[in-house]
């Protein structure tokens, strides 16, 4: 078992900040201390070689969980074991076998060519010469950035920089790699190549991969298993198809019409999510999409119609709501 998490909890203290002059003066002497529970007693287990996705809206606790698993944060309570180590003890041998990549934060030096930064990593991680050059050769070939090694980081495109970050994260052949929003800000082509690379790398090396993302596509393409977190608790843990089923039951139809249509007319087709004069968004059961669409085109002055997947945040929120129901 690569990663074991039991009842992991993290709470933050913060002070209530009020606006206004009177309150600012009051704040000098007395501040109300509040507690935010970012992660509330979560538990899960991950096998070696799995790719697991962490899904959830902003502030759900994904990044906090990742930070605890990498040893950056101490939990308020609970246990975790990564490759047999307790992460926040920060043992050197633990650090040498794990890697974390955080969205747009660079671990590579801005002013230097990537190969200098990578060499620095070689020394920090105490990698053997031969192993280092072998790994470097492999990774730069697969990611096709051999030429860019000698170019200064700031001269590379965002996509190329991300590839270098990945190489830096993998150069010491970690057994576990944590990725926090790895594709954020990347163009679609780069996103795709990052996903393909990670999938292939995992297949090849059996490295355990944990990634958080806002993008459904990241999870769909990479993760056989998804853990959905909301408000600090796990609301779903299982294969992707499970989520798809609960989300896929509904789809959204966006309509644009050439004359305003009032609510009653729209209500007969499905639940109204949005209605603004000549534009409307309806929520329709996926099974009846075909028949409802035909009806809408027949009975309403539609000039443009699009059928969309249910947005993930809403799906999760629905998921969460449904978990609360008896």
């Amino acid at each position: 078992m690569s990663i074991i998490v039991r009842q992991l909890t993290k709470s933050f203290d913060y002070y209530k900040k009020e606006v206004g002059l009177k309150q600012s003066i009051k704040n000098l002497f007395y501040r109300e201390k509040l507690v935010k529970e970012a992660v509330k007693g979560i538990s899960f287990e991950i096998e070696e070689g799995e790719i697991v996705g962490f899904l959830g809206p902003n502030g759900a606790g994904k990044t906090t969980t990742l930070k605890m698993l990498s040893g950056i944060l101490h939990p308020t309570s609970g246990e975790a074991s990564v490759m047999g180590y307790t992460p926040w003890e920060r043992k050197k041998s633990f650090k040498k076998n794990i890697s974390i990549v955080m969205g747009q934060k660079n671990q590579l030096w801005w002013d230097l060519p990537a190969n200098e930064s990578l060499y620095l990593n070689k020394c920090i991680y105490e990698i053997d010469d031969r192993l280092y050059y072998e790994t470097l050769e492999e990774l730069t070939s697969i990611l096709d950035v051999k030429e860019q090694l000698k170019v200064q980081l700031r001269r590379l495109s965002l996509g190329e920089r991300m590839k270098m970050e990945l190489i830096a994260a993998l150069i010491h052949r970690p057994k576990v790699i944590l990725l926090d929003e790895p594709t954020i800000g990347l163009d679609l082509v780069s996103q795709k190549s990052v996903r393909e690379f990670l999938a292939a790398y995992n297949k090849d090396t059996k490295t355990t991969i944990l990634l958080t993302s806002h993008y459904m596509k990241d999870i769909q393409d990479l993760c056989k298993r998804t853990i959905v977190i909301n408000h600090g608790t796990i609301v779903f843990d299982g294969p992707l198809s499970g989520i798809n089923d609960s989300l896929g039951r509904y789809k959204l139809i966006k309509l644009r019409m050439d004359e305003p249509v009032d609510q009653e007319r729209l209500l007969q087709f499905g639940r109204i999510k949005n209605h603004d004069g000549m534009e409307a968004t309806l929520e329709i059961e996926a099974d009846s999409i075909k028949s409802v669409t035909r009806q809408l085109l027949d009975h309403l002055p539609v000039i443009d119609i699009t059928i969309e997947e249910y947005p993930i945040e809403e799906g999760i929120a629905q998921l969460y709501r449904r978990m609360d129901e008896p």
Partner: protein
Amino acid sequence: MSKLSPFLKEIVKYVKVYGLFVKNCIIAEMEFRTNFFMGVAVECSWLVSKLIYAFVFYNTGATVSGYSPDAILIFIGMHTVMTGVLISFFWPNFSRLTQYVREGTLDLFITKPISLQFMVTLRYFNFGTLLPNVVGGAAMIAVGLYRLDMPPSLYDFGAFILFVALATIVTYALFLLPNLLSFKIVDMGPINQIIGQAQEVNNVPMIVYSKWVQLAGLYLLPIFTISNAFPLFILGRMDSAFLVWIIASPIILLILIRLLWRSSIAQYASASS
């Protein structure tokens, strides 16, 4: 490599990594030539400022507590050298601490299998600011010694290196101390201003100050030891008791700052979001 004990291996690793830090910083700095020369020029203007102090002492021709202006030049020279050390080796790192915390880069450093304190406080090195200060300061010391008919011997040079090393440790600890507040305070500007001004107290030899100020500056916050130790030694004004303190204080301060650092990081790891 495998023949060395693990402890020695660690030391070799840190020396090697630090060498890379320095090399990489110099390369990056040389990239922007205009910037580099500008930095050197600015430091030279500060050098002029320090020389004015010497100039004033010479012009008044006064002897202070038995120190002639030539002797005082040695004090100012040592201060110049140590200023160079501070702003080249340490300040570029200390001033980035608040940025690391704010941008989350600190988190990335924490996950590296190398001492966090080492990484954060020594990663950057500024070559351009070191040169004028070390050269200028050393020149002042040499000139002072020659004019006093005490041409420096090899032994003196060795002592100089030793005292610079000791003073460097004290500089590191004393100036890192207020910067630990970066973990708690967002706007370090005012604090940096105060530190900048406070550092100037070594522009003049400590004998100029009143007794209480001297004691505070030697034993409470040993800032005076940084620029006064070597001159006192080379001018033969240092007694053995004082020498003991000069050797002991860096060790004490290093231990203290290490403990304070670890406590700050522990708080960060518990409190940050």
